[in-house]
């Protein structure tokens, strides 16, 4: 046998765990759920073709619209806030100061706290009466929101929780900042550029590929918010909070609603239609961000 054929066989064999997983657990599910989306289907009875009924019903379903709006809200606000906060802390850590690795550790640790535990902790900190934050706000005479009972404050509470765990974004930006050659700044110094100019003209353009990637990852991550909302439904609201959507369904998210339809109501057809809409939305946003990126992302060599 020729070496080329041998290599192809070896390549396939070594790649086989991923290929098998991709075919069975990624490609097949994406295709079959397109079909399920056009059927009336629970795990107790076989799928019956109903055409576009699921999609039509979804766009008349108030909860679906609500879950989509809530999710878009988080994507629109949490994404830029987290990226800016991550970049800001990274730039602070990039200064030549003593104890950098200590600060870095402190800033990063919240990001590895398991999400269920982190959420429970924040439900406690944001407890309207006994919570740490409201007690601090009280000292300063600032209005103390009823974080998890007042539908106006549930999503901001989630955004605060999210900011606590931006350490991953920070580390990535920090590494990228440290990769910027010092000579870039030195030549700017010779030209007499001030710090703001250096940030706009050197730091941002050099970081732009990293920002692009983090932007896409963050958007997609925010589309999948689930655990926080699910745990708050149990821990925060108590009995009056409605089911898992929080007060007035203000934290009913897309992923939560899919889960509900699939595993509580066994409406697999409707849930599959939702999964496909999610697939299209995230693919579209990713495409859109990439498309606009040639306007602001610069891939420079040295």
């Amino acid at each position, binding site marked *: 046998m020729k070496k080329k054929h041998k*290599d*192809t066989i*070896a*390549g*396939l*064999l*070594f*790649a086989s*765990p*991923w*290929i098998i*997983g*991709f075919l*069975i*657990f*990624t490609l097949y*599910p994406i295709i079959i*759920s397109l079909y399920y989306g056009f059927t009336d289907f629970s795990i107790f009875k076989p799928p019956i073709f109903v055409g576009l009924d699921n999609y039509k019903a979804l766009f008349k379903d108030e909860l679906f619209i609500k879950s989509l709006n809530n999710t878009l809200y988080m994507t629109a606000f949490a994404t830029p806030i987290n990226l800016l906060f991550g970049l800001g*802390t990274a730039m*602070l*850590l990039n200064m030549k100061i003593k104890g950098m690795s200590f600060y870095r*550790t402190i*800033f*990063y*640790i*919240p*990001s*590895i*706290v*398991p*999400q*269920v*535990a982190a959420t*429970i*902790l924040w439900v406690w900190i944001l407890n309207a*009466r*006994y919570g*740490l934050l409201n007690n*601090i706000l009280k000292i300063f005479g600032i209005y103390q929101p009823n974080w998890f009972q007042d539908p106006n404050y549930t999503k901001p509470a989630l955004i605060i929780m999210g900011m*606590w765990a931006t350490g*991953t974004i920070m*580390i990535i930006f920090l590494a990228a900042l440290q990769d910027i050659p010092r000579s870039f700044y030195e030549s700017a110094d010779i030209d007499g550029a001030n710090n703001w100019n250096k940030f706009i003209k050197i730091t941002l353009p050099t970081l732009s590929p990293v920002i692009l990637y983090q932007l896409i*990852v963050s958007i*997609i991550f925010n*589309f*999948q918010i*689930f*655990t926080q909302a*699910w*745990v708050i439904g*149990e*821990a925060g609201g108590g009995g009056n909070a409605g089911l898992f959507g929080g007060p007035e369904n203000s934290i009913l998210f897309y992923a939560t609603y899919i889960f509900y339809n*699939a*595993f509580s109501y066994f409406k697999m057809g409707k*849930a*599959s239609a939702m*999964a*496909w809409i999610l*697939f299209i939305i*995230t693919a579209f946003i990713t495409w859109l961000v990439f498309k606009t990126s040639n306007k602001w992302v610069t891939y420079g060599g040295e």
Partner: protein
Amino acid sequence: MKKILPHIVLILIGIMFIFPFLWLLSTSFKSGTDASALSLNLIPKKINWENYKEIFVKVPFLRYCINTLFLAIIGIVGQMLTSSMVAYSLSGINWWGKKVLFPIILSTILLPYQVTMIPVYLIYNKLHLVGTYWPLIIPYFLASAINIFLMRQFFITLPTSLMEAASIDGASHFTIYTKIILPLSKPVLAAVSVFTFLNVWSDFLGPLIYINNQSMFTVSLGLKSFIGEHSVEWNLIMAASAVTTIPIIIIFFFAQKQFIEGITLTGIKG
């Protein structure tokens, strides 16, 4: 002044980051009445170790920890084996798939879990595996995109001369992979292990879908059911949350380097 200001800002932000965590520990040692007293006392009036005893008595928390540890170890073995194989295929072997598969693998990183969740559940349901650990184990033996990427990036930095020499000596890919690549890959295998542990330990959605028998609960699932049953005993809830978190923190301190390097390289957490 110019030197002190950054430190003041960093310390303030540092307090914001660490204080919630200290508050968790502090509440976990308080008595029930002390915890729900309207005070900002970080130091408990009395250190109540009993809280920790109580959570292990009231719920089978030890059981949950052992279950999760079991899943994590199997997951680590699966990932070290399969992701490294695929990474070798994409770096050490010259074949057409190298260029074709790599972009597809990378694009799956961005695929939301929910997109495939339902058909995957139906597959396991058909195989009568819902309610067993199999749906939580099998994926770890089918390589993961992020770990493949992490390992591939490491493999392409290894000196090719070693592999070429072995190849000329007639060594098969299997030999090169097991005798040369893997022994040189300890740093990246360590990083993959750490991230896999973190993933399994923190995973909530997977166990929520597939595990319904309480004796098989993982820590995250156990913690959630615990707050359902003890919704006002915040000192106990915080003790349980601390037990869930502390193993992760300990591992972080031992493997800080792998954490940072892994995240930096992949641009994503685990």
